[in-house]
């Protein structure tokens, strides 16, 4: 396969349970402590804890400003993270040609909590008490829509939905759009605020969630022997991508390069990963081939690492098989929980920071990987190491596998 033209990552924006902003989130993942906590919105349910962005609705509204009244929480998180990313890239919406700016933000769910609330109003109080905002609040593409409005980004807009891989799918698509010359700047990543009474209970009924309610901050433990499921969370991770030549022409050194992307489908089962991991392996190999990398070149893996028994076992086997030289492995979901459609965007941003700072954050709540998982997991403290090339894995219900290969410029 011919290597693809790398695109430059010139800006990052993060709003996560680790905090507001890139620095706060990076500090939180490097500290390696879980952030999940009891969630009043889930009171009385079998799983009553989650990972929330530490901003109240009022605080978010003040940051977003005059248009916040019509937005669901996911759109608000998207706007805040996108503004940070664009500012970080040294771009000003007042100056750019908005027609050439794409907005590609993956989202798996939409604001289902508001949808449930409106459903209750309909049944309990009647049609006149259903908000005219019911539809805009639940549409999963409204994060993309509100960001495009906020930034005056009038190019192509998409909200790819590949469940827990949505953020990574968005970045892969954005890379393709830049490579095809269909835009000059892409504001891309993932956003999700899908924690609700019904969604949490639904994940619980599937057997996907950790039930460690007595100790929520220690519930998410990717690759641990006693892992028992993921912790549902929310957040937004947005990257600004440009063709490397364009970034160079405006004198903007990239934070990192998105050098290759691999996207495949298991074609196996709606919610269980394919046990042979063949499609996931193909995604990893494609991303590396596009980046012109040999598997042995990979210094670090930012794993999907959900903390579910099945995902982590399949993913560990994939890493050990394709990358037998034991590159360091981290999994941010130990600290941040699983923000579903946002996770791929957030974790791509964290992988960029690992490349920049030559520092791998530890996996929270892990002493050592479970017996049988042949991984070099970073635990307890950040590890400073040379990182020239890293991959970020994302896998989603539906059998979606997306791997991003990122390199130092």
């Amino acid at each position, binding site marked *: 396969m011919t290597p693809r033209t790398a695109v430059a990552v010139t800006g990052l924006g993060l709003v996560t349970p680790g905090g507001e902003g890139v620095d706060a989130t990076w500090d939180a993942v490097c500290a390696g402590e879980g952030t999940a906590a009891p969630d009043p919105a889930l009171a009385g349910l079998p799983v009553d804890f989650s990972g929330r962005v530490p901003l109240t609705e*009022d605080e978010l*509204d*003040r940051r*977003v*400003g*005059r248009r*916040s*009244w*019509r937005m669901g929480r996911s759109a608000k998180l998207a706007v805040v993270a996108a503004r940070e990313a664009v500012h970080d890239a040294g771009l000003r919406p007042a100056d750019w040609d908005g027609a050439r700016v794409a907005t590609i933000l993956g989202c798996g769910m939409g604001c289902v909590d508001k949808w449930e609330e409106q459903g209750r109003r309909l049944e309990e109080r009647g049609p*006149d*008490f259903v*908000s*005219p*905002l019911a539809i*805009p609040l639940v549409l999963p593409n409204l994060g993309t829509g509100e960001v495009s409005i906020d930034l005056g980004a009038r190019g192509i807009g998409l909200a790819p939905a590949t469940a827990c891989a949505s953020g990574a799918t968005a970045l892969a698509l954005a890379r393709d759009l830049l490579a095809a010359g269909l835009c000059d700047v892409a504001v891309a990543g993932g956003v999700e605020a899908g924690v609700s009474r019904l969604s949490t209970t639904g994940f619980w009924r599937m057997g996907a969630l950790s039930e460690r309610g007595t100790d929520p901050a220690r519930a998410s433990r990717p690759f641990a022997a006693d892992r028992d499921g993921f912790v549902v969370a929310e957040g937004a991770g947005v990257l600004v991508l440009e063709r490397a030549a364009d970034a160079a022409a405006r004198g903007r050194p990239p934070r990192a390069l998105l050098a290759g992307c691999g996207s495949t489908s298991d074609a196996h089962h709606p919610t269980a990963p394919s046990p042979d991991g063949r499609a996931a392996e193909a995604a990893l190999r494609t991303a590396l081939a596009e980046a012109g990398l040999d598997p042995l070149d990979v210094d670090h893996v930012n794993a999907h690492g959900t903390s579910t028994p099945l995902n982590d076992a399949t993913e560990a086997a994939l890493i050990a098989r394709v990358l037998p030289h034991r590159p360091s492995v981290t999994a941010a979901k130990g600290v941040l929980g699983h923000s579903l459609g946002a996770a791929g965007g957030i974790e791509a941003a964290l992988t960029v920071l690992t490349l920049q700072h030559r520092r791998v954050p530890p996996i929270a709540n892990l002493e050592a990987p479970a017996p049988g998982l042949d991984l070099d997991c970073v635990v307890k403290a950040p590890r400073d190491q040379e990182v020239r090339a890293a991959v970020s894995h994302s896998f989603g219900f539906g059998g979606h596998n997306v791997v991003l290969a990122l390199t130092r410029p």
Partner: protein
Amino acid sequence: MTDTYDVIRSVLTTTFQIPDAEISPERTLQQLELDSLALAEFALILQERLEVRVDEEHATRTTTLAQVTEHLDALRAQSVATQ
């Protein structure tokens, strides 16, 4: 003297994030940047807060805050009278 205007002002500053300095009785809803979607949401919130239903023609983009207040006061007086 009722609290109607204060309730309206509070909805505008909190839900709609409109700075208090922009709000005065003679301002129209359009001047406060409320579009048709916003007006529908505004009416629903007022209905919940004041327990009277705003007629659409009394909360249009050209309606002033004083006029909305007057309309709501009339509805509230009526509602008390019929209780």
